[in-house]
């Protein structure tokens, strides 16, 4: 029964989202599972994430949202004793295949974490970290990248006069936007966000949400959130997960107003989770 649900693909819901119909798939999971030791935290998930849209992942705590998200840029590799099965297709390649260079993958798939994790370096050095890794040495070129990234992250005006001060001196919301700028500076194609606003106050949250709205023009964004309103506000598509299984995936409006699956309905209406 569950298997049946997970096999549903995004295009089966296409009738609810006309623009998505034409969108090309950017990343695709095929029967993808991820194990912590013997524990299967993500179970045979199949989904297609369309390009230049915001996809939200919701579900009760511990259902595997973060795990799935972190599978997309192989951050789970950092945890010993994890392994994956199935496929995660990005740009025509299975990223869990043999010849994949994780470093290149991560420079194409940026990530923003739950808690702002700026480096204890200057604001400039934080944003320039990624470009420097990619070999940009020219100071002027770096300066340009830093400025555009900070502008994109809507924080340029707040920090332009203190680029050389330590980033830890900023407020939590500013730090999170700096993290977004830092992720944008490596010019990724996909931006993964794991509860980027859960450590922030409503005002800072609103700013980040506005920012996501602007970034969708240029990036494919996948955002994990606990906040149903947030998912409804910012995303085009929503995936609902439960106990490692992708229960339902589809147009956000449709999923929130008229879910196919009773479990989804229960969760959204607050009957569990």
């Amino acid at each position, binding site marked *: 029964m569950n298997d049946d649900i997970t096999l549903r693909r995004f295009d089966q819901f296409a009738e609810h989202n006309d623009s998505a119909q034409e969108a090309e798939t950017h990343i695709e999971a095929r029967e993808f599972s991820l194990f912590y030791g013997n524990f299967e935290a993500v179970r045979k998930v199949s989904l297609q994430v369309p390009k230049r849209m915001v996809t939200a992942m919701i579900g009760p705590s511990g259902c595997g949202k973060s795990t799935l998200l972190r599978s997309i*840029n192989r*951050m789970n590799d*950092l945890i*010993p004793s994890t392994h994956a099965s199935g496929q995660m297709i990005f740009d025509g390649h299975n990223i869990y295949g043999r010849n994949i260079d994780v*470093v*290149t993958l*991560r*420079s194409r798939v*940026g*990530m923003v*974490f739950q*808690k702002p*994790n*700026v*480096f*204890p*370096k200057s604001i400039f050095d934080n944003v320039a*970290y*990624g470009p420097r*890794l*990619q070999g940009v040495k020219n100071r002027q070129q770096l300066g340009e990248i830093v400025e555009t990234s900070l502008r994109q992250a809507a924080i340029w005006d707040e920090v332009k006069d203190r680029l050389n*001060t*330590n*980033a*830890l*001196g900023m407020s939590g919301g500013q730090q999170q936007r700096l*993290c977004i700028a*830092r*992720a944008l500076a*490596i010019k990724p194609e996909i931006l993964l966000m794991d509860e980027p606003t859960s450590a922030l106050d409503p005002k800072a949250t609103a700013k980040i949400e506005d920012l996501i709205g602007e970034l969708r023009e240029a990036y494919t964004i996948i955002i994990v959130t606990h906040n149903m309103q947030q998912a409804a506000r910012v995303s085009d598509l929503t995936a609902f997960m439960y106990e490692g299984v992708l229960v339902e995936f589809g147009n956000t409006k449709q999923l929130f107003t008229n879910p196919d699956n009773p479990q989804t309905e229960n969760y959204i209406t607050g009957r569990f989770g």
Partner: protein
Amino acid sequence: MRLGTRKLLDKAFSGLGLMAIALMAMALVLILTPIIWRGSKAYLFKGTIEHRRVMLEQFGRGDAKAFNRETRQAAEARAPVYRMLEEFEAEMKAMDRTVRRNYKDAYGEVEEALHVLLGPRPGKRTPVLLRQQYGQTRWDRTMVKLHEVLYATEWDYSTPGAMGVQIEKPRVDQFRGTRLEPLFDYLPAHIDEMMRPRTTFYWRFITDTSKDSHIFGGIWPEVLGTIYLTLGAMLFAVPMGVIAAVYLCEYAKEGRIISFLRICISTLAGVPSIVFGLFGLAFFLNTIHVSDSKSVLAGSLTLSLLVLPTIIRSSEEAILAVPRSYKEAAFGLGAGRWRTVLTVILPAALPGILTGIVISMGRAAGETAPIIFTAAVSVGMPLKLWETMNQPTPALPWNIYNLCTEHEAVDEIRHVQYGMVLTLVALVLLLNLAAITMRARIAKKLRG
């Protein structure tokens, strides 16, 4: 009631803590006061004209004209002493042989004691040993030596069965009625004019080489040797220790081998330092022959082994204390492991690593046992940098030990021993202070 108890306990604990700190502070004062008080006398003391003579003749320091004027005045004051000696010698010659024998030994002692006090008698052949070419250079020693001229020590065995007791007898009693009798009044009355004491700030004590194995001069070879050995040890131990710590924290997979390695490191930290010294001798000198004989190089290597566990452990702790999120952020931006370590983890861990280095530096600077067989000699010249590869050096900890156990005239130069102790303590404190300020500055930069 409950709340009351809790508050009481709270107070008791903070009281205990305060007491512990106060006790520690007291212990520190108790230890440091004599070190500073006695050690400072190597630098700041009342120096006699003989001190200035040593400075001028041995170190080419001081105003020769002023010194000659002073010498003339001192010689004037000393002239009656030597005249009395001559008169008494003439008197002795005229004596009957049997009477003369009574005076001969006693007079020899007086003559010898006077030599020690004032230096060689004018007109006599210059002694070969440097220490015999000068009188007392310090006023405190002058008073001791003056006393020895005035009093003879004898053993009193009058109580049968008991241990002999040392007693002092005025020498003047032996020369009553002779031409020498007035000497014993003249000396204490005119010792000032003969020795001309003056408060002297001998800061060059730290930069002068020693003359006649520390009888005169300073401790520069020891200071320099200590600096070489300490920095040398750090040169080997810091990179090795930090790399090992990085490996253990970031690369190694937890398992039996790693646990075993960790146990080895802990054990190494507990090995007595003399064992390291012997190992250094057996391995660095006798097995792989880093140099033909003792050398700074061999000593540094041995010391580096000694401090390696401390550096590894503190670096490991510092690295583990770096928030995981930094690492994730770096990885998420596409940094490889090595880049992450270099650009994020090590900078963030630097204050902690520095703490370990500070502790190790103090340890390396002060250790005696590891360098006994590998690097230290009791007398030596300051080394040039390249000479450290194959030459031994004096070093403060070893020479302090050597002075108080093996030096033939240690009672004469206690001030040198204390001066070395003070200098060593100051050196270690200074190294620590430098590292602590550096650490504070970096920590502040990291905090923003």
